[in-house]
């Protein structure tokens, strides 16, 4: 779960990470009122879960109420790389003496949090990593030990931060680690981490990804989800407890299990088709889940054919067949379906489908055959 900048900063503030004073706003009026409260000059910042908004005009400095209003009006509703701006963050403008980069990442390979610090802040860190990897100081924190003062000193000295801010930068890193562990984040990134002319340090941006599986322990964070930023189909799927990812093609796909679902996409692509989505109906899929899944798939109007690829394990193929039959009763789809049912109760499932003789439903016995068939059907005019 990716947080918006201002949500991340509010988490930061809760853990003692210094951030500029700011207020969220959803309307031009709220923005102007917020600007009055934080004072001028202030930054009017688009709240979208994507990088590079500054260069696209999503961050502007206001020196008075007139400019605040003008900027808020310009940014609200703006399209930034496909995302519409619904929220603003108005914060006191900061003077910048130096820009650093700091992050804590959940490193799956090392099975430990990875901390990074660089004096090359304010730019794309992946680019820094490629062009000048030594400019980034890194270390892993043993999760059984936790962050120690020496970790902060070592990163600060190795990154070469200015000597007079070694201590405050180390202290800020300790706070970021605390955000990472106590909020159960998988990413905490500050870019830029600034040094002000009076030698204070401050997080000027905040990128926080929380672990969705841990939200039950963090009821406050569970409230933060911003559904407006999500694709409507994905939202619909999430509400029904399905794992759905929208893609660009024309072939709707349902399979059971993440691995088989991905494999199905690949086999369809191998056969020359373009998948419209990833949809994992999950283990033990029951009839209702299947009906829901069909609704989600068909709510994407680019879908020209649908492939069901089920290998029953816990999932029983007869249940899947029943779900499909029920979906056809409720929805009456206008596109062709190709169905491959194998594994647990596969025969019963195929028999049920045969008996129901649903219109425009094609039964295939292998995954490869089913993929070829659905590609062919989707290509028909």
């Amino acid at each position, binding site marked *: 779960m990716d947080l918006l900048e201002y949500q991340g900063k509010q988490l930061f503030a809760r853990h003692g990470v210094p951030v500029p004073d700011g207020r969220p706003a959803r309307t031009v009026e709220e923005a102007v009122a917020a600007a009055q409260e934080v004072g001028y000059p202030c930054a009017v910042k688009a709240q979208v879960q994507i990088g590079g908004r500054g260069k696209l005009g999503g961050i502007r400095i206001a020196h008075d109420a007139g400019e605040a209003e003008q900027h808020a009006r310009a940014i609200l509703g703006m399209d930034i790389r496909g995302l519409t701006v619904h929220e603003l963050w108005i914060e006191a403008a900061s003077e910048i003496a130096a820009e650093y980069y700091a992050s804590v990442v*959940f490193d*799956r*390979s090392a*099975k*430990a*949090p990875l901390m990074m610090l660089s004096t090359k802040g304010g730019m794309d860190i*992946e680019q820094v990593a490629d062009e000048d990897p030594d400019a980034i100081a890194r270390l892993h924190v*043993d*999760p*059984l030990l936790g962050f120690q003062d020496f970790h902060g000193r070592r990163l600060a000295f190795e990154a070469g931060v200015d000597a007079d801010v070694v201590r405050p930068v180390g202290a800020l890193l300790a706070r970021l680690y605390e955000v990472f*562990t106590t909020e*159960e984040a*998988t990413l905490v990134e500050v870019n830029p981490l600034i040094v002000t002319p009076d030698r204070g340090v401050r997080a000027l941006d905040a990128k926080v990804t929380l*672990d969705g*599986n*841990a939200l*039950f*322990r963090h009821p406050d964070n569970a409230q933060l989800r911003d559904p407006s930023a999500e694709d409507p189909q994905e939202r619909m799927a999430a509400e029904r407890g399905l*794992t759905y*990812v929208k*893609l660009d093609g024309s072939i709707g796909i349902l*399979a*059971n*299990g*993440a*691995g*088989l*679902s*991905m*494999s199905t*996409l*690949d*086999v*369809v*692509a*191998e056969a020359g088709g373009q*998948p419209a989505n*990833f949809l*994992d109906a999950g*283990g*033990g899929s029951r009839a209702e889940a299947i009906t829901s899944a069909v609704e989600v798939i068909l709510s994407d109007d680019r879908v020209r054919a649908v492939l069901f690829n089920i*290998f*029953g*394990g*816990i*999932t029983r193929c007869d249940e899947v067949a029943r779900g499909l039959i029920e979906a056809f009763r409720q929805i009456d789809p206008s596109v062709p379906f190709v169905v491959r049912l*194998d*594994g*647990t109760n596969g025969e019963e499932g195929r028999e049920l489908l045969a008996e129901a003789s649903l219109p425009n439903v094609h039964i295939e016995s*292998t*995954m*490869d055959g089913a993929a070829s068939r659905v590609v062919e059907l989707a290509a028909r005019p």
Partner: protein
Amino acid sequence: MSILVGTETRLCTSGITGREGTFHTLRNRDYGTSVVAGVTPGKGGQDVDGIPVFDTFHEAVRERGANTAMIFVPPRFAADSILEAEDAGIELIVCITEGIPAHDELRVYNILKKNGRSRLVGPNCPGILSPGKASVGIIPASFFSPGNVGVVSRSGTLTYQIGNVLAQHGFGNSSIVGIGGDPVPGTDFIDVLEMFQADDETELIVLCGEIGGDAEERAADYIAEHVTKPVIGYIAGFTAPPGKTMGHAGAIVSGSRGTAAAKAQALEERGVRVGRTPTQVAEAAITLLRG
């Protein structure tokens, strides 16, 4: 032989009194696995179809000599149950539970590593099947028969699919190990490759990977250095877009890292044949084992 589970397995299920726990425990027993106990705090003294239930793993070990645990409790209780099993001296812990918080997994992994006395397989995995000997987990055992192909996979149903294609071509399995699709699996490809390499019964190894992380790349390095048996690879997720989690918590491509293409290339560069579809995996197996 086989690896991880077999005739020596003495299984104890945590969460045995839950619907799924009961169902799959009994299925495992029906298959022939020696199921000796279950654990559900507060239900000690009861039984599930004759299987005695204890309040703690410690009792299950003391009273029934359990050496293998299957974890079926909801995600918020899973880490605690794994740690309890480890504390009680269980050697192999198979965690089926999906959706465990990542920081819980990190903690569990590091504690088990520190103590070095238990192996965790999973979480979020289908378990382990040694056909003809024992099944611990939810793998539909009836589709598999004993044989000489060892399978290790990050995915469940994809494993069945590949196993099924292999079976249709006449191959049986020594063991099938689902290591799970989560960010911090207790057991990774390398651990299982080492076991298959040492297992007399295994003559061919199928490695089923997917996008995300670098487990396949590290496995490729390991194969090049330590595995003399033939290995066939498969990677799911060639069509996955970057930045989107594909069902498994671990299945996500970030930037240029973790792509299926990079993984397939890493394997192929080290001499591992990689099938683009499950069918191609079976065809490669025919070539390798039958010339």
